[in-house]
């Protein structure tokens, strides 16, 4: 379709950038190099959205080359309406990560940006991969830079958090590897499309086992209750950019896996797991919200709120109706925007105060009105305020849940109420009231670079809230095809 292999270019340009950064000597140049690379990647991906045919559910911008012919594995990339928004999100968040780390990262600067760029390659590659082998490669590649980001540039408890993250995700992905091999053994292909077209040759029992194997990998990444406990530690200890990538993209990889692998390839297996998945999701929403209520550390609070919010996503996916699934995908994007923004906000103020304890804050509004306004906007978005992005996603998910069972919908709405409570309370304790004496003399207001880092996310939150069609229109065709293949 295009003159150059656009997906390959977008995927590997960051890797090239990473290699160049390691060759450069100066930290300053490394920063600019990283910024240029991420911006170039974002620019490279633009033709994808412009040239995309929304009416088709087929893969587009397909690239394919022989890779391991003896196993029939090809290097094949392609995007459909489900994966495309994620590529955009990954490209945008990568730019913002550079912006957020500009002044915050002072040690091993070049290595830091190299790791960030490798992570970008893994993120874009994962969503562009059109066969399971490549998907798995990028899935595992993602772990490496994240492990380093947490373990090297993290907070005081970084080693524990990094190891916990590594062990959780690795034990999940080992089972995915087993599942992948088993799939290849019985079907002789790893191409997503081919796998989805030939599911009938797997017995429901085989599908159930395979579903369980993939579930182990995906559930850890989402993370679903009760395999979520790595997340608060990883988030709390990670540097801001690490948290942004974790919350913005990494958590979405698991849910994306359900959409790409579990549902289309193993529909009968999914059928068997449907009810438990729905219940676990609803539990995660309420459970996560309760735990969030009592957190004393801002970053931990947002991390736990992610568990609750990702519960909405899995709830929507497993309603297996159009509004639920489309809402879930939209909500993945929304959560990527909002949680990234919240972590950026927390990171920016942490750079000045060096404390994450909520009790050390108070009355920030008086000294930092711009910061407070932006934080208010993102808190509102996270609380599902209509007119901002999350509302539409949650509305569609809850609507889908109601079509499945009224109780699920009611639990989700209870989660929304609790969500408002912890966000309003957080805002009250941090921003309203008398300015905390410990903040005296600190210049808390944002500088131009930081405003520029947050502004795109604020615009996106507003834009998706008022005109969700700009994502929903991509989803219509592929979701319809996805659901056509899954019995209900």
């Amino acid at each position: 379709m295009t003159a150059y292999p656009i997906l390959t270019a977008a995927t590997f340009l960051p890797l090239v950038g990473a290699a160049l950064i390691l060759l450069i000597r100066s930290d300053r140049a490394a920063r600019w190099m990283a910024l240029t690379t991420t911006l170039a990647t974002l620019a490279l991906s633009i033709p994808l959205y412009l040239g995309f045919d929304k009416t088709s559910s087929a893969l587009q911008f397909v690239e394919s080359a022989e890779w391991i012919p003896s196993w029939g594995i090809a290097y094949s990339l392609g995007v459909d309406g489900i994966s495309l928004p994620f590529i955009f999100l990954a490209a945008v968040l990568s730019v913002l990560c550079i912006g957020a780390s500009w002044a915050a990262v002072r040690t091993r600067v070049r290595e830091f940006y190299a790791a960030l760029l490798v992570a970008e390659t893994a993120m874009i590659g994962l969503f562009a991969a059109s066969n399971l082998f490549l998907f798995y490669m990028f899935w595992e590649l993602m772990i490496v830079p994240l492990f380093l980001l947490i373990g090297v540039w993290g907070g005081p408890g970084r080693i524990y958090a990094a190891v916990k993250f590594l062990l959780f995700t690795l034990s999940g992905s080992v089972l995915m590897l087993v599942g992948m091999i088993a799939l290849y053994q019985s079907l002789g292909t790893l191409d997503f499309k081919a796998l989805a077209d030939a599911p009938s040759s797997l017995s429901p029992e085989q599908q159930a086992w395979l579903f369980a194997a993939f579930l182990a990998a995906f559930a850890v990444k989402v993370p679903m209750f009760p395999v979520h406990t790595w997340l608060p530690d990883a988030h709390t200890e990670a540097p801001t950019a690490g948290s942004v990538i974790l919350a913005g993209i990494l958590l979405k990889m698991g849910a994306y896996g359900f959409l790409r692998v579990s549902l289309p390839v193993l529909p009968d297996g999914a059928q068997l797991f449907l009810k438990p998945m729905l219940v676990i999701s609803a539990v995660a929403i309420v459970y996560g919200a309760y735990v969030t209520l009592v957190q004393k550390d801002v970053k931990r609070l947002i991390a736990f709120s992610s568990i609750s919010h990702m519960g909405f996503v899995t709830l929507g996916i497993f309603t297996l109706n159009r509004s639920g699934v489309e809402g879930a995908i939209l909500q993945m994007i929304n959560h990527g925007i909002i949680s990234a923004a919240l972590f950026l906000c927390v990171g920016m103020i942490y750079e000045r105060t060096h404390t994450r304890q909520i009790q050390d804050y108070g009355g920030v509004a008086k000294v930092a009105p711009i910061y407070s306004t932006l934080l208010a906007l993102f808190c509102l978005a996270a609380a599902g305020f209509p007119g901002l992005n999350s509302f539409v996603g949650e509305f569609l998910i809850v609507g889908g849940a109601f079509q499945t069972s009224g109780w699920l919908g009611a639990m989700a709405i209870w989660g929304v109420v609790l969500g408002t409570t912890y966000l309003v309370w957080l805002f009250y304790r941090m921003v309203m009231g008398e300015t905390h004496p410990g903040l005296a003399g600190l210049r808390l207001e944002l500088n131009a670079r930081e405003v520029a880092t947050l502004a795109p996310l604020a615009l996106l939150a507003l834009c998706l809230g008022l005109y969700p069609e700009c994502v929903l229109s991509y989803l219509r065709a592929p979701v319809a095809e996805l659901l056509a293949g899954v019995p209900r």
Partner: protein
Amino acid sequence: MGSFNWLWLLPFLPLAGSVCAATMHFGTLRARKEGNTGTRLSSIAGLIACGVMAAALALSLYAFIQLAGNREVTALESSSWAWIDAGSFSVELSMVVDRLSSVMLLVITGVGFLIHIYSIGYMKGDPGYAKFFAYLNLFVFAMLMLVLSSSLLGMFVGWEGVGLCSYLLIGFWHEKGWPAEAGQKAFVFNRVGDACFLLGSFLLIAIFDTLDLSDIANSVQANIGANSRLMALAALLLFGGACGKSAQFPLFTWLPDAMAGPTPVSALIHAATMVTAGVYLLLRLNPLYAAAPTVLFIIGCVGALTALIGASTALMQRDIKKVLAYSTVSQLGYMFLGIATGAWSAALFHLVTHAFFKGLLFLGSGSVIHGMRDEQDMYKMGGLRRHMPRTYITFLAGAAALSGIPLTSGFFSKDEILAHTFLHGGLYWPLWIVGIFSAILTAFYTWRMVALTFFGDERFDANKIRPHESPATMTLPLSILAVLALAGGLLNLPALHIPGEQALRDWISPVTAAGDAILYAGAQAHHPSLWLELVLLALGSAIALVFAHKGFHGFKNGWQHDDAMRSKRPELVGFLEHAWMVDSTYAAKIVAPLRLASYVIATLVDQMLIDGMVNGAGRLAMKSGSKLRSVVDGSVMSYALWMGAGASILTVVWTCF
């Protein structure tokens, strides 16, 4: 249909005004940092906000004239905008003005405009002057979205928006601490109500497959029988949402706390407009409620109970704004009682007159507070009629209307609700008695307030506080509202079998026709006979006059009466002062268990159980690892051995399965 695109201007002009004012606010902040005062920018923000309101008022009048000029046209509608479209959900938004919303429009923009003018005087010199107008305009935007949206979901946008603005404005002086807390409370209470609203909406989607308000209203009739129970449940849930927004029992306790906001906010949001949104919602969906008599009765009970709680609590308050706040709670209860009896127009009538007289009373109290240098305690006032004559006269007009002194607006509107309750009979009898009793209390506390504030000795230090009349920007809106509060009854005079129609009832009859059709199912609506109506009017007049007199004379020389009560019945007084202990019940029965549950889940379940298992598994692995270390000794031979063993085990497993 679909050609009235200028209707979009109605909400979006105030939004534009809000954005302008917010820009000015950040401009003043910058100017102040550079050492300037930034007052000029601020005052421009105020002027823009008022100008925008004037424009909105003009548009509302234009819409009203369009409707009034051609009785064939029942609604003006703008073209629609596809907001959400996914799966079975498609939400299209358009702006609609029909007979009902045109009345709301005039109240919101009319009273809103006056309050904007008033705020110019009231907020003068406040460092957040421009911010205040930005919030106020934003509120008007949300309120107009609420009233004009064609879809329940669009209404929800406004519904949440007014909640947010209420939060921001209650906490406007959040540096003081307690306003921020009050704002937070209001937000969370409203969100509990909103959850009910959403649940009800999803139920409506399940029944009607749409959220378009007029489609829902028109298809209720067809669903009676098959979906009656579901519809009743949806109606009840939506009423739950209305309870949150309109401060009905048990969700009313945020409203008195909301008085922490600047007084114009109390007048606009917490008396005239936002808190009546619940009433508007029920009126809008009147066929749904007409089809669910049980739900109507529940609404009646809640309304009557709230009227009683509010009125009795207002009796013992010292803070002038708290009296008015509880009074508002009580008067909103009357509106819901009106809806419960199917007297749609009576509820709307009371909504309108209440907007006049309570808006007036709040602004009057604001003028008093302004003149008294932020003193709100009535025990420390007294004799103010000499110092603030204009405020005094207009306040009297508002008090007369609130207490139902004959021929004022509140007299007619409250009387109509009570008359309908009386006529309904049966189970509504006790509700009527509660309503009458609350009316007695209302007359009493209103004139107690007037006496304590404006009569008797000056109980403040005249050397420190020199009460003064407020500027014209404040007294002019007071005068206009005073005229409306006195003469507002003309909108809907009782039928009385004499020529002259009930204007308001006839005006909104196209909107309520569907509800009436279900309610009376062919039979004639109850109409009081002439003598009954006269008796009820006479009863209302007698109550108002007698108890207004009692309240006034008991307190015109100070608050000794309260002290006597306190020493005689301390428990009762404590019970009343704390609004029937509802808040402390919340603290004990809801907040405390919620906190406990959160702590238990967070520490016991999450940290100790789940994460404990994770760390335990880790430790187990470490231990077994150190045991295994002897195996991993680095010799190639032993590796080969283990590999062989492993491979054979795998082969055995493979072949067996």
